[in-house]
């Protein structure tokens, strides 16, 4: 099994490396929104002193951490896999004795991530000198607590996206569904603004949804803003969602593969 993953890694890394120029463009595209939000909120915080207790530095550290956390927990499964179901190239992978989504596609995503993080590192350092965040209150314990949370967040997000991608067995409109999913992430994950500044209703709902596990929860862990009770609660929620998303994906996948007739192949 380890040998299989090793081989898959070699193949997928080489494949992603081929597209490094595209990857850089993707990175640029993805960077702009968080930087704009950062600029907007620090401008407000600077003019008022603070926004509900958030100082300009709180916003800067939040979005600077978000850049890393989002890059670790997000995935591109819809783009790297959706077309395989639609054009039938999936059949070649289905006859292999390994799960196409949980091995090959997973490793492909991790390889993509490895490369984007390599590209992000110098950009992040430049941004660090441009915005000069004060990270002095970040502790090693916070970072150590955040790493498993990010891994958990990645798997929850990966399985949910994989389930949406597997809807391609039934419909050709997965990109529209994915756009809707993306809007839910914007609303409930803390990507636009720290969740505590969102309207109360959204905060209450967000607590029970998986989206904050992708962004808000790991960031707050890194920044050391959570009480012990909140930390435990987050991990419990994460574990529950991990199980739920695994079962949902598995169910959709099984049903879908049965329907699959490899159009055109």
């Amino acid at each position, binding site marked *: 099994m380890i040998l299989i993953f090793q081989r898959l890694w070699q193949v997928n890394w080489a494949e992603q490396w081929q597209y490094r*120029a*595209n990857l850089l*463009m993707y990175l*640029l*595209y993805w960077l*702009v*929104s968080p*930087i*704009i939000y950062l*600029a*907007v909120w620090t*401008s*407000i915080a600077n*003019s*008022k002193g603070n*926004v*509900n207790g958030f100082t300009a530095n709180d916003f800067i550290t939040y979005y600077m951490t978000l850049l890393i956390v989002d890059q670790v927990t997000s995935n591109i499964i819809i783009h790297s896999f959706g077309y395989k179901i639609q054009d039938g190239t999936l059949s070649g992978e289905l006859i292999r004795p390994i799960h196409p989504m949980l091995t090959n596609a997973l490793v492909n995503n991790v390889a993509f991530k490895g490369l984007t993080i390599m590209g992000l590192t110098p950009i992040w350092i430049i941004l660090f000198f*441009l*915005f000069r965040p004060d990270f002095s209150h970040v502790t090693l314990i916070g970072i150590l607590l955040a790493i498993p949370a990010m891994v958990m967040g990645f798997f929850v997000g990966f399985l949910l996206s994989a389930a949406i991608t597997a809807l391609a067995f039934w419909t050709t*409109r997965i990109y*529209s569904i994915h*756009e*809707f999913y993306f*809007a839910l992430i*914007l*609303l409930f994950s803390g990507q*636009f*603004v720290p969740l505590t*500044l*969102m*309207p109360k209703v959204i905060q209450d709902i967000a607590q029970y949804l998986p989206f904050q596990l992708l962004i808000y929860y790991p960031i707050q862990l890194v920044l050391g803003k959570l009480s012990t009770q909140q930390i435990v609660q987050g991990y419990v929620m994460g574990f529950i969602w991990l199980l739920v998303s695994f079962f949902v994906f598995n169910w959709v996948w099984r049903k879908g593969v049965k329907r699959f007739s490899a159009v055109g192949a």
Partner: protein
Amino acid sequence: MQTLKLLGSFLKINIQMSLAYRADTVVNILLNIMWLGWELLSLNIIFSNTTSLGGWTLGELIALLGVFRLVNTMMVALIWPNTEKFNQSIRDGSMDYTILQPINTMFLVTFSRITVWRVWDLVLAITLIVVGINLSGDIATASSILTFMLLTISGAIVIYSLWIVLIALTFWFTKFDNNVTILQALMDSGRYPATVYPAWLRIIVTFIIPIAVATTIPLQALRSDLNAGQIVMFFVIGVLSFWVASRVWKSGLKRYSGASS
């Protein structure tokens, strides 16, 4: 006159093409309304925490959102589909046939594909601008509205010209497939007044990829933040950029030598 007639037939062809995907159109419009809801909610979140963003009021930001949506519509309804077709035609050499047509090639390349349902977006954008101006309480005089409209048009021309330059680069570098991604990447910066951005970002979105020229600047004219000299300058920039773009396009076209033949 001939140009308008052509534009009419392009529209007709594109309507016919989109009629084949009616359900998609409905889904797209629904998604579009969803995003409008999100944009208004995000403004609401900002303004529930503050009364002004860099000196701009809620009404002004709604109007800015309208102008942003105008530019964005140009991006998704015109720039993306035509770029895709253009890149394809350079790769497979079908550009040959476009050049043979007895009409301005630049016009043909940039207007033959139009995502028709986006017309709805234009209506929405103009509604946002009108509502925003009314909400803002800015004293909109006839002359400030006129300069606003002129600068909106000239800003759109600046973006259009930059697009021409970007796709014309394909004549020199055939493998330049990502030609408009850079434009799209910075597009989102147009949602907020460029004056709240740190200096380096403001310089990028004003001078290098001038999204702000098409979004923030017209609104500043409406807020009477600009003096007469600046208004004339931005208008001249619009005219000048179009002239430069058509020169670049012409010399690029001279380098085109077909794909296979």
